[in-house]
């Protein structure tokens, strides 16, 4: 047991915290809003080796664990980085797991091409509102029970959306089949996406909360800082407490995936759902305690409010995921149960 970052992880965190602070200030996020993607930021991330860092060395990757990648995901989330880093990483890992000789692997690991994952099964060959779909060269997804890799061209334009994400519909119907019965492989990728996105959402939430408490201590009304009112303090305390728990649970899910824990899928879904709600709650509290200014485009907290919602909803309606998870944990033959 070690519930702190290793020295290596701390080193990675410092590098990427500095990287995103430099390369991805809020104005860069605003500039990338239309496409939901910054080619320049992606290029620099590729130079850092991030797109392939959690790919095995034998496939040209960095050989890092998901836990290592999660450290990067947290920093990317903190700065709302407009790049499909998590989608790309899990798609490439999934492609290699099913077709290690696929001719796109080398380019993808290097970050010269971009991969993504359709988070919901395609309907009549079409995967709707795929994150990173506006820019990905390679799209993995589930179509009629098969894991396929689709090859249509990236549209280069996002469907305009609440969170300025690179969402686009992509065709999977004419794709190449990686596994005829590929739901297990696809589910593994979705779980990795959920766990890493959960960590990313906690990074987002931490920054949202920090923006809120900082503003509340600077802003005075009635002669005292807004942050000195007990009602404001308690509002912050509630979401900060949930956030502390969300951070632990997200990292636990990533650890479970890394270590092959039987609970990994369940924990990943739980971590994602909880982190999504918590990130929204943190952003909402900080927005409220910004008063009118939070609502102004030039303030950053509104970016976090919108993106917390969008990064949660890209998976689907939360209630659908709660019910899917219920089917897992409440199955008659489940060994789960609350006290398990």
């Amino acid at each position, binding site marked *: 047991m070690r519930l702190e970052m290793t020295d290596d992880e701390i080193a990675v965190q410092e590098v990427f915290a500095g990287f995103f602070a430099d390369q991805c200030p809020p104005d860069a996020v605003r500039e990338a809003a239309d496409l939901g993607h910054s080619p320049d930021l992606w290029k620099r991330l590729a130079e850092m080796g991030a797109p392939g860092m959690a790919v095995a060395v034998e496939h040209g990757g960095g050989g890092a664990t998901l836990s290592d990648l999660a450290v990067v995901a947290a920093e990317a989330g903190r700065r709302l980085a407009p790049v499909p880093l998590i989608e790309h990483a899990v798609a490439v890992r999934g492609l290699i797991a099913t077709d290690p000789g696929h001719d796109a692997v080398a380019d993808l690991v290097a970050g010269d091409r971009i991969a993504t994952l359709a988070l*919901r099964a395609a309907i009549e060959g079409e995967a*709707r*509102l795929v994150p990173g779909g506006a820019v990905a060269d390679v799209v993995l997804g589930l179509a009629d029970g098969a894991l396929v890799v689709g090859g249509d061209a990236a549209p280069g334009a996002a*469907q*305009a*959306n*609440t*969170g300025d*994400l690179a*969402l686009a519909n992509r065709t999977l119907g004419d794709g190449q089949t990686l596994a005829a019965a590929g739901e297990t492989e696809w589910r593994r990728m979705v779980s990795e996406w959920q766990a890493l996105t959960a960590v990313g959402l906690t990074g987002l939430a931490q920054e949202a909360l920090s923006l809120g408490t900082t503003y509340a201590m600077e802003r*005075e*009304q*009635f002669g*005292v800082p807004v942050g000195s*009112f*007990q*009602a*404001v303090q308690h509002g912050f305390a509630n979401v900060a407490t949930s956030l502390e728990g969300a951070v632990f649970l997200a990292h636990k899910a990533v650890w479970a995936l890394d270590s092959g824990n039987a609970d990994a899928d369940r924990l990943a879904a739980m971590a994602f759902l909880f982190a999504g709600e918590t990130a*929204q709650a943190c952003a*909402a509290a900080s*927005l*409220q305690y910004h*008063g*009118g200014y*939070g*609502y*102004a*485009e*030039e303030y950053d907290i*509104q970016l976090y*409010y*919108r993106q917390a*919602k*969008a990064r949660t*909803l*890209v*998976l*689907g*309606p*939360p*209630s*659908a995921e709660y019910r899917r998870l219920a089917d897992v944990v409440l199955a008659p033959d489940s060994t789960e149960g609350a006290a398990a």
Partner: protein
Amino acid sequence: MDFSYPADVEAFRTEVQEFLTEHVTDAVLEEVDTGTVHSDDLHKAMAAKGWLSGAVPTELGGGGMSPLKMSVLIEELQLFRAPIDAMGVAIGMASIILELGNDFLKGEVVPRLLSGDALGAFGYSEPESGSDVAAAQTKAVRDGDEWVINGQKMWTTMAHVADYVILLTRTNPDVPKHKGLTFFIVPLDSPGIEIQPVWTMGYERSNATFYDEVRLDDKWRLGDVDGGWNVMKTALKFERGIAGGQFYSPPLIDATIDWATDAPAPDGGAMIDDPGLRESLVRAMIDVEVCRCFAQKTAYLADTGAPFGVEGSMTKLFASETFKKHSHWFMDAMGPDGLVKRVEGDGPHVAFVEETFRHAPVTTIYGGTSEINRNMVAEAHLGLPRARR
């Protein structure tokens, strides 16, 4: 108790509905979607109906439309998604002038406001004073028969299309903050005024307005020198009677039902059959019924001449907080579909849930934050002592 409306008010409601059906066209809604929450055609048509002057109290020379009729008008406007800000400012500003203003202001400004020829804007908030409005720092210094104004206002919504701003200024910095304030009606084409847009998450446009050596004849002063807080209290009294915000949620609920009727559910059927969504829709409808009760009670109190300030605080708190909650519920129900924004050419009915999600949070801020309203309910309704603030 008797919740029925008098026959003349019901007839008025029908008249309003017919008017709005005709005038709140898709073109008007698209005009509003430019960010300036105003349609001049609609505003002038309402003025022509006599609804602006009608709303001014009889004793001030207005049409004395009853608070009940006003509440029905405001309710229907909201249900039709019509813009109401310009109406509220016009009626409010005209009423204050008629109660406290000089003959010049009454003759020059009021007729133009009530005919719809001129628009007003509120100039209370400043960068450093939002809820704490009495902390205003914009200076007005007397210079003979004139005043020289320097400072900055924030959230001067509609200033870029308006003709007058009702400006709260500090005329005496050496007394307690409530006692050194003075109001002016300021023509927005006065030299020295600069208006900068403030765009918001909800794509509404507000403004920051800058006052640099703006010179104003003393005739533009509203109320006594250093008597601004009394003017503010009068302004708040009128504003409460014309405040919207009780019926934010109905158009959102309807838009969600429209979507759910056609949207396929993951397991077949339509989303409208989803038991979780159905429960949420009913809960939201109940909240709307509560808002309807609050709005009716507030209008009733106003109609009988009773104070309705606390009821107004509760209405605002409940309506805006439930609206924000609903905006999350229905975004969530739509999932990724809810995220997709309207793009040019879509028309005003596409992506209304998404737009509402981005708009909703500000409703718990403007016109009195939820925190301020909770303070008010705790003190004035529950009799708890003033907490530190």
